[in-house]
């Protein structure tokens, strides 16, 4: 393991978040088992009070998840010099491949926490706690996911071995095959460019239509397209957005964008992308809940807001991504 301040902070945060979510899940399980809105017993009153604790816990847990995701990305990049052949976060992740799983599960957990918070917000607008069972059921699923994340993060950081000079010879030959594959193979640029810009245009069109026509199927379409855009956008970052930012046709790494050399442009870019996908998903996820009368109003009011936010964030992502394509002299044309 590497005793890096950032790593210790991340491990500490992971434990705290897991602790909060476990406490939340435990309280949630009790609520789930005994909830009876029609009862006016003292027990039911106590349960209703418990919901405040749960909201607070989960709100804090989500804030910490977002913060620690950013710190994780920066730390991965910051510690790369201690691995042979590593040039950015990719090299660090390759140094102990379980890191890829940790990163993936972390992003998934981030989305799940955010969706939970959004459901909770909606639920709090209503007088009769309509989503209680759904929420606390989800919380029971969220807890194992976060436990998995914590376990993976620990496995990853504890399993990292720095390559340092040994006393027999230089560290050179200490056998590190893992750090070599630092470059992610590129995908063909042109088809992806078409998919990316076409998909984005389709998404924005669907968003505008959903705002104008207020048809349920359009809102489901927005959510489905948001999910598709996540995949397309991430593939595009690797295939052509990164090379444009680096102005180097052979350089495809999605993590170098997070480095100071590229003005940390990756942080706003990825935040915008994940924000856009989250709000887009939310539009579709909330749609079936409109059948519940007491929260129909708040959802109907929030959906256009989410749609608009998602479109704006996606537009921001595209602006950042396409900026060097439009304004720099570099072109990938010869590599199509």
């Amino acid at each position, binding site marked *: 393991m590497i005793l890096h301040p950032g790593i210790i902070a991340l491990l500490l945060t992971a434990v705290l978040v897991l602790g909060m979510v476990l406490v939340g899940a435990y309280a949630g399980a009790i609520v789930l088992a005994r909830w009876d809105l029609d009862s006016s017993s003292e027990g039911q009153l106590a349960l209703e009070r418990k919901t405040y604790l749960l909201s607070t816990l989960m709100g804090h847990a989500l804030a910490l998840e977002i913060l620690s995701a950013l*710190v994780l990305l920066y730390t991965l990049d910051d510690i790369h010099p201690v691995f042979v052949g590593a040039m950015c976060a990719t090299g660090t992740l390759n140094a102990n491949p379980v890191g890829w799983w940790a990163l993936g599960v972390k992003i998934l957990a981030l989305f799940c926490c955010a969706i939970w918070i959004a459901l909770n917000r909606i639920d709090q607008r209503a007088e009769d706690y309509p989503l209680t069972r759904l929420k606390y059921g989800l919380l029971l699923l969220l807890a194992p996911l976060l436990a998995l994340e914590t376990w993976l993060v620990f496995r990853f950081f504890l399993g990292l071995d720095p390559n340092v000079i040994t006393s027999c010879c230089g560290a050179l030959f200490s056998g590190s095959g893992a750090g070599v594959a630092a470059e992610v193979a590129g995908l063909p640029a042109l088809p992806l460019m078409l998919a990316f810009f076409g998909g984005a245009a389709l998404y924005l069109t669907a968003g505008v239509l959903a705002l104008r026509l207020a048809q349920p199927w359009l809102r489901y379409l927005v959510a489905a397209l948001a999910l598709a855009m996540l995949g397309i956008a991430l593939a595009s970052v690797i295939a052509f957005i990164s090379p444009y930012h680096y102005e180097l046709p052979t350089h495809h790494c999605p993590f170098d964008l997070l480095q100071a050399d590229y003005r940390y442009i990756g942080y706003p870019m990825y935040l915008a992308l994940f924000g856009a996908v989250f709000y887009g998903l939310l539009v579709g996820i909330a749609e079936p809940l409109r059948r519940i009368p007491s929260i129909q109003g708040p959802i109907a009011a929030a959906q256009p807001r989410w749609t608009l936010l998602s479109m704006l964030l996606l537009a921001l992502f595209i602006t950042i991504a396409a900026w060097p394509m439009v304004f720099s002299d570099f072109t990938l044309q010869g590599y199509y």
Partner: protein
Amino acid sequence: MASGRLGKHLKILEFALSSMLRRRMKNAGLVIVFGAVVFLLSSIVFLTSALRAEALAVLEGAPQLLVQRAMAGRHALIPLRYGETIARLPGVGAVTPRYWGYYYDIYTGANYTLLGIGDARLQAPGATALRLVEGAFIAPRQRGVCVIGAGVARIRGARIGGIVSLRDARGWMQEYEVIGLFESPSRLLTNDLILLAEADLKALFGMPDDGATDLMIEVYNPREVANISRKILERLPDARPIGHAEILRTYETLFNWRGGLLLAMFLGAVAAFMILAWDKATGLSADERREIGILKAIGWETADILALKFWEGAALALVAFLAGVTAGYAHVFYFGAELLAPILKGWSVLFPAIDLEPRIEPYTLTVLFLFTIVPYIVATIVPSWQAAITDPDRVMRSV
């Protein structure tokens, strides 16, 4: 709607601040303890990152590849003919032998680093990155003179024109006239340095004519360092090539490890503080309990009280964090980190009085935030909630 919500939170914040000011003593105690924890942790983080930057700056000018010879697992003098073998490898530029060593001075109890510089390198302009501040550099074929670092000058009370005497391998005293004093962009590099002519150094240490301390290898393409090291090892199995990147990596790991170890030790302090914060937040006085009861009776909701508690905690944590970080910054960058330096720098009589370059990064602050404010807030969630669900009727009846 949003501005309405914001306005409400601002009002709650205002109320929180005024109610905290009313309970000055209780909160001041927490701020002091919290601030002390932040001070400790921030000093560690600032000092480690500054020392790391300093060490890496020093190594910027280091050669691409160094070759030592290991005998019985220990460092031994490397024969000069090794250099000829290495120079024949394709991709290798100049091979320069280096002569240097350590000298323990019994009069001052300090260790000096002695470096010999050959006539060939003296003739090449700009051959060394060390900057003279005063006096002259050693001229080719000049003997019996030396250039010394600021630390050596201070501890020996030597000035230009003075004499530095060193005991040679046979036990005889050799005298060298000081003709220059060093100042380098990084004082870590030259503080304990005495620069002699190569011939003088060999005579002083009694080194054989055909051996050098190590060999500096110029590699035209830095990416070939690993390859060339492999080839050197094939031809000279007892050689020990050390690449520039490896030295950087080792330093990086070393400073991470030192700072991380200290932080891990002080996690205990964070845990103790969490318990204190929990305890303080749980043990509400009758006064506070009544206040919450009255607030709820006049129409505050549970969520409002939770917001109030959150803002109280945030204000307190922010004050303590800023105070602690400022104190830690001053401690490291203006007072030379006197409390921590012995642990983090290593141990030596002749410490360079380093003026660390003040640096503060958003990342460092975020890590400190995770270490201090986050545990505090987490520790106070449950107590805040317990306070917020206080039943107004019961509270006011009991007092």
